[in-house]
């Protein structure tokens, strides 16, 4: 309840308005107060979690540069090494998601693969259905496509894993069988190539016929707010992804404008695994 009055970035206000909370409260403050208090108590009374209840949990990936939402192509940013850069492409695979409860039990979402693309708004939200009621304390996921899936039969490669689904924005290396886990491209005056651009294509699942660089990274984030799944609460976990972390101070466009092989990609993967953070969790009642 209280959560509803805290200020959040633009995305949350959007939710707010959509649900018409503001106007209702403006008009009938007294009523809202009474309602709020009674619901508050009601919530306390029913805090017994019914394990048979289920609801969905959604993860919202908001890509930011520092604290500014990413704007493709037109906005120029500056990285930690004082290099200018724009972003024309910013994509990554998310898989092997799991949610952990305070009692340590873990809920795994096997065989679910997602491709978050900055250019496709709908891809920023991942909805996990049928999550049993409970208080979830952490979320974990892999950035990339795990090795088992990376070597699987073509029949397993559907949806975002279907090479035919990428068009010009390819996320698959056909010459070195494997998915591109993370892709970031843009322009920079600091680039030493003629096109003045940079391309970071990070892949490498460890190799099938030889042991090669493994750039799969698992990210585990605790949720201070807890994600409280109830019959009438479908929590939304708001993740803030800071693109600046891709560079940290170690990756300079002037030194590497094109990274497309797994060994060079390792340093970038080590950087971007730290770009994810849980900003907050919405536990709004439906």
């Amino acid at each position, binding site marked *: 309840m209280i959560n509803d009055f805290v200020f959040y970035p633009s995305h949350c206000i959007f939710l707010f308005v959509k649900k018409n909370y503001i106007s209702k409260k403006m008009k009938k403050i007294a009523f809202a107060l009474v309602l709020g208090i009674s619901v508050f108590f009601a919530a306390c009374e029913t805090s017994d979690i019914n394990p048979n209840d289920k609801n969905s949990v959604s993860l919202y990936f908001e890509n930011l540069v520092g604290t500014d939402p990413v704007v493709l192509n037109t906005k120029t940013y500056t990285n930690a090494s004082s290099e200018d850069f724009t972003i024309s492409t910013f994509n990554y695979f998310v898989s092997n998601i799991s949610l952990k409860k305070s009692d340590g039990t873990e809920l795994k979402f096997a065989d679910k693969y997602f491709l978050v693309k900055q250019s496709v708004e709908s891809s920023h939200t991942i909805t996990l259905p049928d999550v049993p009621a409970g208080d979830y304390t952490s979320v974990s996921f892999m950035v990339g496509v795990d090795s088992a899936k990376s070597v699987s039969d073509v*029949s397993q490669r559907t949806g975002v894993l279907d090479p*035919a*689904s*990428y068009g010009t924005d*390819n996320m698959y290396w*056909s010459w070195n069988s494997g998915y591109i886990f993370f892709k970031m491209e843009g322009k920079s005056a600091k680039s030493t190539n003629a096109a003045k651009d940079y391309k970071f294509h990070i892949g490498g699942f460890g190799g099938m*016929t030889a042991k090669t660089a493994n750039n799969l990274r698992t990210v585990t984030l605790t949720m201070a707010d807890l994600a409280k799944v109830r019959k009438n609460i479908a929590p939304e976990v708001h993740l803030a992804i800071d693109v600046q972390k891709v560079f940290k101070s170690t990756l300079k466009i002037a030194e590497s404008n094109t990274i497309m092989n797994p*060994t060079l990609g390792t340093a970038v993967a080590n950087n971007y695994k730290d770009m994810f953070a849980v900003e907050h969790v919405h536990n709004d009642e439906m």
Partner: protein
Amino acid sequence: MKLKLGIVLVISILLWGCSKEETTEPDTPLVLFEKPSTFPNTSYKMESNPITEDGFLLGKKIFFDGKLSRDGTISCAECHNQPYAFTHHGHAQSHGIDGLVGPRNAPALQNLAWGKTFFWDGGVFDLDLFSLAPIENPVEMDEQIGNVLEKLRKDVTYPPMFKKAFGTEDITTERFLKSLSQFMLTLVSANSKYDLYKAGKASFSADEKAGLTLFNEKGCASCHPEPLFTDESFRSNGLPTDFFRNFVDTGRYRITELKEDKYKFKVPSLRNIEYTFPYMHDGRFISLEDVLDHYADGNMANLETLDPIFKQNTKIGIALNQKEKSQIIAFLKTLTDESFLKDKRFVP
């Protein structure tokens, strides 16, 4: 009256339909894949993609279709010609779209069911995933697989063929790739003079016999062992690395990025070698004489990754005199499989 006529018409159509079906039933069903008795088990999981006549015919049509390329001009068969064991005849390095040239020589397409990896550097580990590479390669077909599927969907001949092969008209990545695999898996070459000789059905000349003995005793067979004439490993046979003026092909290293794999390439099969010239990953040798000279004349590059087998003598390489070279070549020519090169099943 009208009704009666209708019934008669329907019955006659039915009968005609039946009799037609009977007459078009092929007398002998096409045998598409048989494991030669001398071959090991396949690497390809045959049960994951059972070869059917309809799947094979679909794969063959796709293999010969220029629609797979951006401008409709380049089919797989453009660079893989059957009379030359599906190599790119007359091209040291393969020419693709817009006349562009890639750095590598097109290898023979044969016995692919036994392949553990594909490409000279082994970058692809599953035949089903292979065809994405030439389609997307900017100097080969320069097209996106999504566009290819869209083109096939719009072509009236394809949806019914997919239905026959896979049950519905849906054209998916999996079906597209697996039908191409079905075609490629049937490219089995195991009926050369050498195979007949082994089976006691043909005899070798004295030179061919001597050549076979030398091939085994001089160590060729340690990398090119019977019956596939490749052990699928990655090795360096000491090719100088400065063949191209401004490009060094690091081979297997490109995939593994391991120092010990620098300049190593997949050992190619020697079946049909008489017809797969020019030779080596970059097509640098025109003739088998050139190849044997490379092995024997001490001109190998003494690379750090050069296979130890070539470092046993004071002069690097394999000691062979002229006669021995020509005997080995005589033997290599027994690996020609005319029935494969002329097999009508593979003709569009």
